């Protein structure tokens, strides 16, 4: 298998030379939960981290004199450190300013800056950010909840629209779920753009432009890096419920396609990870190696990727490359033939690894790299959290050793193909050979299913390869260059003039538009939205009913059906109070539909279909109760 061979060669070559990057473990205090969910540096250079248990810790990165600054926050996922004693934190319910006003180094004031978005305690309602733009606004994103978990409807702070929850796996239960939004310095929420599924990484470029990463799944074929522009829609329709201009109208599928701005840079699933986190810009001025100005993205798999952006006909697009991958579990990765790119395969140890190209030698990169932060000394800190999806949490950092990595530095669109820049002079004879390059192109479907296979895939001939005098640039002319495709480039055999192979000989360029301004006008090779037929039913489905119960009822009636607490307030106890489910189906179905407002039982007539209400009642009876009074046993 030539892939295995290439890997062996890379391994041998890598063993012979110094590594350009060194991965270090940052030991955390035993009292700190290691589920790192934010990594920042204060203006004085202190390392400040948050974890999912709701704490903020800080230390001098050289002395590692950790102190706990704040605690008790609700799953914070981002920090903006204004000063050592003054931190803005994005937690699930709000953007909060946390301050130490007594001078003891520990926060005492937790001030609400903005809390205008909807929350239901659903497990998937993650809030990301804040980052700060050049006007001083905070930039945040909220993910869509997921019906695999409950929705709490008690005392909701904002109108919660449950209407769609029953029908969609990823609904938008409250305002601005599925949006990127800003909070002004005065504390006002300004919705910015819609169509996000779970924008787990929020970034502001040195130019002040907003970028986010989103997560592969329904409507999101592969995780992308997205340049977020005001008023635009980026693909997941659940968020459109809150789009003022639509006024509740639901766009037809073909309208969605027309409304959608395609992703700026696609990170192909499997090849460039499976679940990206923060995008961060290399503003170290060369202290992190030769990639100044480029974007680094952490991924949930054992991968850090790199993105080279450019403006083409007025819009950003560009190329992504693997940057750092873990060294172990390679056999498992190589043995996967890559036929199914919908899942990232797990290695023999059960961990998920990056696939498709040989890994960098000698690292122990963990999974869960959702948070990245450049330190004042130019090293890159990697905050890791994996809860429930994998294991391994903590903090690592990457230090450039001064050795120049041999890499494709840039991949830029030209009128007839691509120009490749290299970090170091390359073997000019090799660069000039057309067969040094393997080019393929493909695209992904935009549809409601989770992920997408690669479609319209074909090999593209390199018809010309020319080399610059210094051996640092190659210009490729391609047989076909069209917008709407992702171009895959493999340069497995390429070596530097010193004989060192390219460390990561793989790149993907997302061609949304050509320099002429031409964009993809379709058609896609397959229909966008295939209707899912609903199975015929002859009786209530308790399995469906269980799902409805766990989504809509469990917050009050509890998992054991016993409700709870004092009479007059708490939900009915189906187990203890036999008269509850002793009533007939019609009466109970009526109650579920119209509620008992005075007692706090909501009405579900507008939320659940008649079938859902029958299903949930059947489940109540099966799980907790007696049979209907009017049903023979």
């Amino acid at each position: 298998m030539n892939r295995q061979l290439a890997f062996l060669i890379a391994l041998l070559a890598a063993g012979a030379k110094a590594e350009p990057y060194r991965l270090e473990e940052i030991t955390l205090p035993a009292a700190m939960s290691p589920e790192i969910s934010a990594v920042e540096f204060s203006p004085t250079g202190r390392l400040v981290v948050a974890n999912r248990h709701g704490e903020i810790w800080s230390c001098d990165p050289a002395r590692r004199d950790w102190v706990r600054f704040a605690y008790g926050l609700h799953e914070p996922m981002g920090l903006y450190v204004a000063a050592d004693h003054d931190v803005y934190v994005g937690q699930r319910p709000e953007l909060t300013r946390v301050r130490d006003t007594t001078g003891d180094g520990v926060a005492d004031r937790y001030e609400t800056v903005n809390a205008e978005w909807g929350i239901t305690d659903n497990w998937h309602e993650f809030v990301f950010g804040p980052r700060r733009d050049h006007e001083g606004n905070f930039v945040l994103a909220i993910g869509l909840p997921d019906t695999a978990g409950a929705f709490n409807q008690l005392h909701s702070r904002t109108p919660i629209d449950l209407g769609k929850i029953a029908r969609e796996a990823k609904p938008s239960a409250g305002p601005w779920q599925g949006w990127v939004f800003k909070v002004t310095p005065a504390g006002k929420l300004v919705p910015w753009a819609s169509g996000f599924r779970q924008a787990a990484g929020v970034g502001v470029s040195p130019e002040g432009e907003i970028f986010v990463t989103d997560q592969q799944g329904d409507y999101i074929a592969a995780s992308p890096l997205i340049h977020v522009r005001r008023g635009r829609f980026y693909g997941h329709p659940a968020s459109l419920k809150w789009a003022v201009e639509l006024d509740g109208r639901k766009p037809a599928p073909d309208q969605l396609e027309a409304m959608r701005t395609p992703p700026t840079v696609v990170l192909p699933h499997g090849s460039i990870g499976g679940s990206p986190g923060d995008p961060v810009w290399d503003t170290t001025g060369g202290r992190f190696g030769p990639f100044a100005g480029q974007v680094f993205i952490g991924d949930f798999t054992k991968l850090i990727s790199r993105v080279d952006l450019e403006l083409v006909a007025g819009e950003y697009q560009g190329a992504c490359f693997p940057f750092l991958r873990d060294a172990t579990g390679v056999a498992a990765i190589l043995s996967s033939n890559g036929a199914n790119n919908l899942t990232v395969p797990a290695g023999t140890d059960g961990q998920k690894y990056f696939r498709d190209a040989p890994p960098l030698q000698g690292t122990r990169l963990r999974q869960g790299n959702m948070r990245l932060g450049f330190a004042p000394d130019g090293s890159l800190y990697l905050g890791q959290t994996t809860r429930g999806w994998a294991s391994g949490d903590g903090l690592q950092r990457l230090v450039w050793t001064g050795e120049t990595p041999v890499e494709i530095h840039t991949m830029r669109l030209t009128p007839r193909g691509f120009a490749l820049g290299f970090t170091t002079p390359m073997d000019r004879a090799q660069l000039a050979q057309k067969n040094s390059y393997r080019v393929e192109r493909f695209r992904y479907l935009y549809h409601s299913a989770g992920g997408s296979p690669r479609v319209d895939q074909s090999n593209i001939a390199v018809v010309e390869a020319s080399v610059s005098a210094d051996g640092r640039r190659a210009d490729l002319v391609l047989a076909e260059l069209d917008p709407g495709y992702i171009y895959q480039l493999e340069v497995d055999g390429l070596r530097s003039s010193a004989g060192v192979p390219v460390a990561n000989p793989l790149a993907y360029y997302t061609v949304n538009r050509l320099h002429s301004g031409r964009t993809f006008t379709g058609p896609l090779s397959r229909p966008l939205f295939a209707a899912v037929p609903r199975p015929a039913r002859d009786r209530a489905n308790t399995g469906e009913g269980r799902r409805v119960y766990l989504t809509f009822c469990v917050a009050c009636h509890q998992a054991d059906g016993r409700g709870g607490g004092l009479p007059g307030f708490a939900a009915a106890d189906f187990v203890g109070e036999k008269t509850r489910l002793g009533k007939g189906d019609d009466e109970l179905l009526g109650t579920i539909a119209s509620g008992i407002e005075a007692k706090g039982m909501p009405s579900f007539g507008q939320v659940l279909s008649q079938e859902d209400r029958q299903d949930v009642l059947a489940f109540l009876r099966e799980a907790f109760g007696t049979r209907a009074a009017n049903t023979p046993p």
Partner: protein
Amino acid sequence: MPTPLAPETRGFFCNWASARLPIRRRIFARWAVLWAGIMPTLTPIASGAEPGVAVYRTMMPECGPSSFAVALGPSLGLSYDPGRGGVNYVWQGEFVDLDPTWRTKINKPAELRGTIVYRESVRYPLRLGGTGRPPRFEFRGYVLLPGAVEFHYLLDGVFVREEIRASASGRGLVRRFQVDDPAGPWSYAIDPQPKVNVSSPEGAWNEARTALTAPRSREFSLHLELEASRP
């Protein structure tokens, strides 16, 4: 009734530490060498401004989303609802077990380790300035004070500070409400509370014993004391 814990903060931290054990164990398996070196030298850090008071924003059972769990001492806990506004309930016993909110991908509400002794009704109970209707409640944050937490919010635009601390007896709590510019009398609607004696030094019960009222002033307080004899 659960046994009250002594001394002061230990009970709370026992819960805290055990709640985190599974995670620790996992880490241990991987980083045994590293961790073995530092574990014994570190002790838990005080969680509030003073031992005994701890404030967590989390998922609480039978509360609005993202409610607070407040530990007011070794054996008294309180849930504050920043959405509805006000105290959801007070319980006696150990603090909450936060592990269910952290353990798995699909998290669950925290588990109460005690008995609920006081509960407020669905509607926000405080009325300012003699208006009978429920005010618009807007949560503005909180401050950790020595031995107390002070919640901040707007009631129909009026800024209110509510300080909550354990009472001197250790068997109850005191809620002190403050406004800068009172517009009228105070009124606090309370459902019958079989296990707690509710009173106000500034105020008096109305005839139906459904609300405590006090004349116009910048300050109003509620004392909640556990009934001595009853379980």
